[in-house]
């Protein structure tokens, strides 16, 4: 069996950033595996701009951002295979690959999971009605339009105000389709504020909050949808039902980290992030298996994805230098937090970057970080929104003070 020191699964932003950083740290034996026929991942279909503000201080389009990373990757001459699908990984880090050259296994010393995410589908959110043609996830419609050059419909309704949905509302309008509206079941939007303004307001596309689709009707093709307002328990209020004629429904109802492979290797998954449980080195419960990017948790900005890839590169180097991360201290989320990452702090870490999301919009709150009952940090936060991931670098002076547990809490005072 062929051996590779480091195998990176996925050639999107996370995988590329990790590979580049590893090579820049002098690691030679790297192999990156990508299932598509080009590198870059999902960014290739995101032709709008707004990428790279944090990392490059520039507004790039998705393909431009990807290309920067690909150019560097090529310049560093890192080995990679395209059209290659990983079919299986084992706990012993044996990777099964199928590609046009063959179907075979390789033994890795380190695996970096960077497979990205998939979109939540109609079946996941269970919209009743006919099973007619004309219901797609926003990302699929985006691919058809931006990569293949085809529109999927002419009168379109978008369910979910996630960023892909908002971006697609504008994109479809520019492509001369009629976007009739966007509905969001929550009382607030799940997209970035700038996208609400630039993609909906600027094009007079209505956003219906606390509203959902309760039925899709159509014989062969979608003919109409039933829109319904929901109460504060998110239950449809049937007396508000109204029918809207459309030929297409696009769903932008969230991404799910794609961890089917991780699960095959017995990587433990957090039921909240739907990504692996990791420590502060972003290592999973399987020693030598790391995760970064959307496979770990869903990001709203690609810059953070790239940075996560680089962080994994650092961790991989220390792992290879035989630093065993033995003591793992659990990190717990408390209060109105959807999740906190990492889920463990390992005592060998020289830094701790905490990432978290709130469960609902908060104009004012305090982030309190405590260990073993003692408060380490408490700082005021304003304008927190579930759609925006927050980060906090715990000052180094506190690292020594962590013992027993670390609690990250959002509190009102």
């Amino acid at each position, binding site marked *: 069996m062929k051996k590779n020191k480091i195998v990176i699964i996925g050639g999107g932003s996370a995988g590329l950033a990790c590979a580049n950083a590893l090579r820049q740290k002098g690691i030679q034996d790297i192999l990156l595996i990508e*299932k598509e026929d080009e590198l870059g991942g999902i960014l290739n279909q995101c032709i709008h701009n707004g990428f790279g503000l944090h990392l490059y201080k520039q507004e790039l389009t998705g393909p431009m951002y990807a290309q920067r990373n690909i150019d560097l990757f090529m310049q560093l001459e890192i080995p990679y295979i395209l*059209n290659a*699908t990983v*079919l299986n990984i084992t706990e012993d880090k044996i990777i*099964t690959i*199928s*590609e*046009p*050259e*063959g*179907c*075979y*296994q390789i033994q890795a010393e380190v695996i970096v999971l960077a497979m990205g995410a*998939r*979109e939540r*589908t*109609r*079946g*996941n959110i*269970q919209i*009743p*009605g*006919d*099973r007619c*043609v*004309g219901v797609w*996830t926003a*990302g*699929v419609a985006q*691919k*058809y*339009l931006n*990569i*293949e*050059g*085809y*529109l*999927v*419909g*002419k009168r379109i309704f978008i369910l979910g105000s996630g960023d892909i949905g908002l971006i697609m509302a504008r994109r479809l309008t520019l*492509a*001369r389709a009629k976007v009739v509206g966007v509905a969001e079941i929550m009382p607030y939007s799940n997209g970035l504020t700038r996208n609400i303004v630039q993609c909906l307001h600027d094009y007079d596309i209505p956003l219906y909050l606390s509203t959902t689709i*309760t*039925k899709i*009707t159509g*014989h*062969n*093709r979608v003919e109409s949808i039933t829109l319904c307002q929901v109460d504060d328990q998110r239950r*449809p209020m049937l007396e508000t039902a109204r029918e809207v004629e459309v030929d297409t429904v696009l769903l932008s109802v969230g991404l799910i980290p794609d961890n*089917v492979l991780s*699960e095959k290797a017995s990587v433990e998954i957090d039921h909240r992030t739907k990504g692996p449980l990791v420590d502060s080195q972003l290592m999973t419960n399987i020693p030598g298996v790391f995760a970064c990017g959307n496979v770990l948790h869903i990001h709203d900005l690609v810059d953070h994805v790239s940075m996560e890839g680089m962080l994994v590169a650092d961790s991989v180097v220390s792992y290879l230098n035989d630093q065993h991360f033995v003591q793992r201290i659990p990190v717990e989320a408390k209060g109105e937090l959807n999740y906190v990452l990492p889920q463990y702090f390992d005592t060998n870490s020289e830094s701790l970057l905490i990432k978290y999301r709130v469960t609902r919009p908060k104009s004012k709150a305090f982030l309190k970080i405590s260990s073993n009952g003692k408060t380490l940090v408490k700082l005021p936060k304003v304008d927190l929104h579930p759609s925006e991931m927050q980060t906090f670098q715990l000052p180094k002076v506190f690292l020594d003070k962590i013992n027993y547990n670390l609690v990250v809490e959002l509190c009102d005072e």
Partner: protein
Amino acid sequence: MFDIIIIGAGIIGTQMAYTLSLTSLSVLVLEKNAEILNEVSSSNSGIIHTGYDPDEHTLKAKLNVRGAYLYRELCAKLEVPLMECGSMIVAHNEKEIQKLLALKVKADRRSIPCKMLNQNELRLEEPHIADSVIQALLFPTTAAILPWQMGYALIDNACQNGVQLHTSEPVLKVERGSCFTVTTQKQSYQAKMVINCSGLNGDKVARLEDPDYPIHLLYKRGEYQVTDKSDASYINHILFPLPTDHGKGVLAVKTVEGNLLFGPNNHLVDDPYDGSCTIEGLNEIDAKIGEVIKPLPKSRMIRQFAGVRPSSPTNDFIIEDHNHWINVIGIDSPGLASSPAIAEYVYETFVKPVFNPIMIDREVYIHPKPLSEMSIDHRNQLVKKNPSYGQIVCLCEDVSLQEVIDAIHSPAQTKSVKGIKRRTRPGSGRCQGGFCEAKIVELLSKELNIPRQEVLYDNDQTQFLIPMEDLYEKK
């Protein structure tokens, strides 16, 4: 002139076509949809019932028991997977136990193997069975198939043996003279005998031949929830509540591919093509499945669908000869399980006496095994011969490019995204086509030599892509 025209390519039509293709008869199958097996036969539980349930002295009882027997032979011959997982009917109280015992008596009389299980025994076999269950009746020989896998195997063999299949041709008119003239929107065809296997349209097609045909079918819809394959080990048997007058109840079944189905309920609908799911219906399934198993969270569901049963008012199959016009209608459950026996019965009772055809020994067409079930070495050998076997188009279900191409060019051909999904699975996994649909469209377009905007999603008139150039030209 054909000897026989079969109307409808559901499981009954394809069984009929296969049976007749082993003889010297010339046969034409007319199917109204672009894709075969796209109605009742593709939206059901896929269970090969043993035949304990139907009332005594009915065609259902006789043909179900015989059908279950014939499936063994047929599946072995055509190499179609048959999962003999067994089934259990559960009881929650003393009254229900009495009903189980009555069923057991009926099963014993029909020589169907079965056995009562007590609490301990049944929990050992089914750790996730509902807490309220106290006893169960085990039928070890109940099996499951994927109905379309069977149907495609049958039609591919039939086509290879010389049967003609015309899809997208609904039968609109029938005239009786010295022979039958059957007319679709495209053409008229002549035949000496017609077999009406048109499922939900059965009574209406019967009225094309006899405007006074008295029977009106009832349409009973059943809705389902589907889980991802990763829940496959949640149950080991097919788990039923006690049957009632409203059918076999909301059950839990593991499909051959490992997804779990929860359903169906049973509600009368006016429109036979109303295969929609409702909030109330899905809630009903969520509630009722809890009487059989410990429910799984809603987030595990990847799909919902519904099927409509074409039921006869007598609650039995109607298989009858009107002077060489054969009606095979009212084929609701256990129609799938009975289908090989239905074809045999029609052949022996109505076809053979008229034509007395010669039986011909045909070579069997075996579907290629899915790569996902092969060893790495075996796959590697295939890839070395043809690199397209190495390129994976569907990640969730592990399907290669070449397998899709092979499916498109199978003897009965496939021309829609849905057809590809049924034949080789891309789109049936957890991403529901998110990753692979565009690739499937591209392959269909290339292999069928049509532009992408002409590729069908499902039935006729389901082309769905609009090229950007078109939009800009119009303005």
